[in-house]
């Protein structure tokens, strides 16, 4: 057992450290953080159905804005419920949450997807034609699948290459 291990072992067992880490220990701790982030990147394996499912739900939510009043609210509720089910299934499967930190690690792709969705909402609200609504829904679906997977890759890359512990 090295001196660092000994010192840190005392900390974990008693929770009462008496020493501050040396610069070398600080670097070793940063290496631990890097390894943990790289391990997390390996665990963040998004199920194949997640983004297609998310795309369908988002397409439903966006197109529900053009539905007749009697259908609009139920479609919106179904979309939001579907979103909750997807996130819950992802959590159960991976044992990990998807937080706003995920958004921060894949900022460019997440913003791009957000812009597509906002533009789609504006188009559906302004152009009240079924064909336009259908095409917009398809665009939202495709954008979610493509940009979502790109965001995943960006998150994994940043975690493997030291998102924080640089």
């Amino acid at each position, binding site marked *: 057992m090295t001196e660092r291990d000994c010192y840190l072992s005392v*900390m*974990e067992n008693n929770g009462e450290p008496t020493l501050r880490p040396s*610069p070398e220990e600080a670097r070793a701790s940063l290496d631990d953080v890097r390894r943990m982030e790289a391990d997390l990147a390996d665990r963040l394996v998004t199920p194949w159905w997640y983004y297609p499912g998310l795309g369908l739900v988002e397409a439903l939510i966006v197109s529900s804005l053009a539905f007749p009043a009697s259908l609009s609210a139920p479609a919106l509720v179904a979309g939001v419920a579907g979103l909750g089910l997807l996130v819950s299934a992802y*959590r159960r499967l991976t044992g990990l*949450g998807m937080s706003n*930190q995920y958004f921060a690690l894949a900022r460019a792709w997440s913003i791009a997807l957000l812009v597509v969705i906002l533009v789609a909402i504006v188009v559906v609200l302004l152009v009240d034609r079924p064909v336009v609504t259908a095409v917009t829904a398809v665009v939202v679906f495709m954008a979610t699948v493509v940009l979502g997977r790109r965001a995943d890759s960006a998150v994994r890359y940043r975690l493997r290459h030291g998102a924080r512990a640089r």
Partner: protein
Amino acid sequence: MTTRPEFDEVIHAPNRLKICALLATATTAEFGTLRDALGVADSVASKQLKVLSEAGYVKLSKPTGTGGRAKTWVTLTPAGRRAFQGHLAMLQQMAADVAQGVG
């Protein structure tokens, strides 16, 4: 907003630092996932989580009503995130100092 570098005794222990590092990104993780990521026994993971929980850095919850055996989920609290970021900033500062030949 910049993070103030601050040594945190609770977080600095290796397994607790690793737990916070994982939760800083995922925010929430299932107990078994955390234990596997640490590569330690249940009892070791539980002990470290208890220390973090008592410090107010993580919150443990056991959602029920989904059927089957309820699993324990661990969530990093805002205080835990602040403490981890401050501790990480301190480690980075120390590592940078040694790289520049200071201290």
